[in-house]
């Protein structure tokens, strides 16, 4: 079984590189000089970049990142260990036995590997980008029986406008707006956060001090805080569900990255904080009045 060790910066490169060595007892200078970037051990060497160099103690962000990078080594170690088992062991007359053994190994190791991957992703300082961007329509429907309203995203070329019955509900088309949906993906760790329950976003206009959305923006008065509401499909929240915490966290991190004004802050909150859908004066970010995509 290979081991890993975190070593100090290599003097012949810059002060900002840290190298992880998966095999022990190899001098750094020899390994780096003879095997990096090409060489048989290339898949055993992992490079990581830290702005503080080897002085993790002066920059907490790099400490957190280093922890994530270290724990991310474990799946590689496990995979390397599996590769070492001779292929012949899994072939020939004992193929069934070999497959069973391999399956058993992964059955035992997989939870640990998944746990390590989760820990690595949890330690990552995510850099979110939009992914799976699709254009379509935000369709609003109302039930004349219960007076409830729902919304959904349709990616059809023409938005559906038919009336239909669904259980006790009689849904009628109220409006549709051109909109786009997206998910978020971290460029660093690859984690994807689906935002399928997010129908649109809305800027809070601070119309009602008793509203939970208004209060969410009143807590940080030293900064230029703007509250945006992530709207889900069912304004009644009859199922008790709204935007997921994971989605909200990712949206907040995404929209708060890269501001030129350090005092500016965006807070994204779920729509179940709204006091009233009917009296809300928020501005929905949707293209009003456009009915055709092409």
């Amino acid at each position, binding site marked *: 079984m290979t081991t890993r060790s975190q070593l100090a910066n290599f003097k012949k490169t810059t002060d900002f590189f840290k190298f992880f060595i998966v095999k022990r007892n190899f001098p750094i200078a020899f390994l780096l000089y003879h095997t990096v970037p090409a060489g048989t051990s290339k898949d055993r060497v992992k490079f990581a970049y830290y702005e503080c160099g080897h002085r993790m103690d002066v920059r907490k962000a790099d400490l957190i990142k280093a922890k994530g990078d270290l724990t991310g080594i474990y799946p590689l170690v496990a995979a390397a260990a599996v590769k070492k088992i001779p292929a012949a062991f899994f072939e020939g007359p004992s193929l069934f036995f070999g497959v069973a053994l391999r399956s058993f190994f992964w059955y035992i190791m997989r939870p640990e590997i998944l746990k390590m991957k989760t820990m690595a992703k949890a330690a990552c300082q995510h850099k979110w980008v*939009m992914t799976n*961007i699709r*254009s379509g329509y935000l369709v609003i429907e109302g039930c004349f029986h219960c007076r409830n309203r729902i919304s959904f995203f349709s990616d059809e070329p023409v938005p559906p406008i038919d009336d239909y019955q669904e259980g006790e509900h009689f849904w009628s088309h109220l409006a549709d*707006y*051109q*909109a*786009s949906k*997206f998910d978020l993906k971290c460029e660093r760790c690859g984690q994807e956060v689906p935002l399928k329950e997010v129908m649109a*976003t809305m*800027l809070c206009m601070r119309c009602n001090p008793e509203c939970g959305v208004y209060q969410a923006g009143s807590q940080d008065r030293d900064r*230029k805080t*703007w509250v*945006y509401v992530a709207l889900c499909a069912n304004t009644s929240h009859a199922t008790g569900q709204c935007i997921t915490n994971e989605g909200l966290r990712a949206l907040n991190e995404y*929209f708060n990255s*890269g*501001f*030129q*004004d350090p005092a*500016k802050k*965006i807070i994204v909150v779920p729509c179940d904080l709204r006091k009233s859908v009917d009296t809300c004066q928020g*501005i*929905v*970010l*949707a*293209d*009003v009045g*456009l009915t055709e995509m092409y």
Partner: protein
Amino acid sequence: MKVSEVVAKADLRSFNEAGDKDIKGVYISDMVSDIIGIKEGNLLVTLQTHKNLIAAANLVDVAAVVFSRGKTPAEDVIALASKAGIRLLGYDGDTWTLAKKLYESGVR
């Protein structure tokens, strides 16, 4: 390049005096659903003067908004943009001519 530099070079009209941010690029679009995905620091060129455009521009932290073809935003739109620190500018010509002028002014 700062917004104030572009205003002078491209001879743009100013509706408010909010902020002087760095321009990192230009984005031309008239649809709010399209603007949500752009990166921060863009100079947004548009025909749409609706308030929800300012809401979207604030979310993605644009450097400024230029309304082409002589479009003029309403007072409440200007007030919202000023509160958000977004400079609103105007240009009388069409979007294509404005785009060429911005490029010739050095905006990349």
